[in-house]
C-alpha cells in the first residue's frame, strides 16, 4: 500500500521509522530539521556544528525511535529538546566554553541580545512575538539567556547580577506565563 507521507501524522511517521522506513525519516526531517538547525545554530554560533547536531538528532531518531514517547509531547518538541541538550553539552565543554567566553567578553550583561533584537525573532510568527511581548522583561531575559544562550540558571544569575533564587523563580513564572500567553494567541502548548 502506498503511503502518503506528507499527509501522515508525526506519530505515524515514528511508527514507520521504527520499521526502518527511510521515506518516513525523510519526511520527519523535511518537517523539523529546519527548526532543529535554527536552534542549534543559534546556540552553537556555527553552521557546521549546527549541521552536526541536526545529523545526530535524526540519526538517533532512526537508531532509537522508541525514545520518542508521543504521550510526552510532540515530535517537534522532542527533536528540539534533543538538539538543545546536545548543543548545550557542546557549549559547556571546556574548549567551547573558552571560545564563548572570549566572545562574551565584548559585551556586558545588559547588552546581551534578546530574542526580540535577534535575527531569530524576525522569523518568528506574529503570534509568538505577541506572546513574548507579554512576558515581564526580567523573566524574558532570564529565559532567553538560558534557552538561547545555553546558560545554567546560576550563570544567568551572575550575568544579570541577581540572586539565584530570584532567577530560578523568574524562569519558572516566566515559563508558566509563556505557556498561557501562547495559548491565548492560539499556539497549542498542552
Amino acid at each position, binding site marked *: 500500500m502506498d503511503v502518503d507521507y506528507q499527509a501522515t501524522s508525526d506519530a505515524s511517521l515514528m511508527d514507520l521509522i521504527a520499521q526502518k522506513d*527511510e521515506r518516513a525519516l525523510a519526511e520527519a*526531517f*523535511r*518537517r*523539523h*530539521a*529546519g*527548526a532543529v*538547525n*535554527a*536552534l542549534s545554530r543559534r546556540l552553537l554560533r*556555527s553552521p557546521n*556544528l549546527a*549541521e*552536526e547536531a*541536526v*545529523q*545526530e538528532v*535524526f*540519526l*538517533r531518531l*532512526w*537508531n*532509537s525511535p522508541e525514545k520518542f514517547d508521543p504521550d*510526552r*509531547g*510532540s515530535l517537534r*518538541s*522532542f527533536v*528540539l*529538546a534533543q538538539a538543545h541538550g546536545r548543543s548545550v*553539552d*557542546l557549549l559547556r*565543554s571546556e*574548549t*567551547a566554553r573558552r571560545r564563548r567566553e572570549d566572545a562574551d567578553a565584548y559585551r556586558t550583561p545588559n547588552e546581551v541580545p534578546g530574542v526580540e533584537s535577534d535575527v531569530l525573532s524576525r*522569523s*518568528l*510568527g506574529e503570534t*509568538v512575538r505577541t506572546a*513574548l511581548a507579554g512576558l515581564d522583561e526580567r523573566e524574558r531575559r532570564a529565559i532567553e539567556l*538560558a*534557552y538561547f544562550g545555553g*546558560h*545554567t*540558571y*546560576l550563570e*544567568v544569575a551572575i550575568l544579570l547580577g541577581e540572586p539565584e533564587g530570584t532567577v*530560578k*523563580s523568574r*524562569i*519558572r513564572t*516566566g*515559563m*508558566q506565563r*509563556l505557556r498561557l500567553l*501562547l495559548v491565548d494567541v492560539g*499556539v497549542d*502548548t*498542552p
Partner: protein
Amino acid sequence: MIPLSHEMAGDLLAALALDAVDAAERTALEDHVSMCRRCRAELSGYLEALSALVPDEPAPPAVWERIEAAIAPGGAPARPTAPVVPLRPTRRPGLRAVAVAACLAAVAAAAGFGAGRWWSPDAATLEAVADAARAETGATAATLQSADGTRVATVVLLADGTGYVMDLALPALPPDRTYQLWEVTQGGVISAGVLGNAPRVSSFQAVANVTGLVLTEEVAGGVPQSEGVVVASWEAPSL
C-alpha cells in the same frame, strides 16, 4: 542521591526544560519526572512552549544526504563535516594533545588538506588498496593500542592525507553501537570517521597537525563529540 520532593522538583522543572540545570540536578529531576505524572505533564508543556519560539526554516539538504548515506543498507557511513569538537577530558586523561608535530603531523601539514570525504569501495578492494599503501613512499604507520598495550589497529597515512585504518583486532559491537576514529590536533579533537560495528578496514582524510588518534565506541551513526569509552589510542612521539 537524595530524591527531590515534589515541591523542589517543581521549582526546577522550567529550568530543566531550558537545560539550565547542572548535571546532578538533571539526574535528580529526571528521576523524579519518571515517577511523577504531574511533573511530566508540566515539563511537556514547557517544552512545547519553547518549541514555538524556534522558527521554521528549510531543512538543510546536505545534512539529509549524509544521513541518507549513513542509513542506507551497506552504504557509506556519514562523515561529520564540522571540525573541532573536544572529547570530554575525563574520558581519556592520559592522552594529551602534544604541541610538537610528529612525523604524522608533518605529513599532514605538507598535504594541505581540504574537507574530509569518505571513500567506500567494497572491503576487499579497500583492504588491497590499504595494504599497498603501506609500501608507498612517504607513508607513515601508527599503531593504535588499548590501555593495556594490546595492538588494536594499524593506521597508515599517505602524503596526500589519505589515511587507512587496518589490521583491526576488535570485537563486533551490537548493531546500535559503532567504532569511531578521532584525530587529536592542537585545536581540539576531530571526528575522522565512523567505522561501523564490525570494521575490517576503513579510509579517511586527515587534517593538518594531527598529534594523536583515538578510537572510541559510540552510538551507531557516530557522534560529533565523544560520549563513549576509549578503545585504543596512538600519540605522536614528542620531539
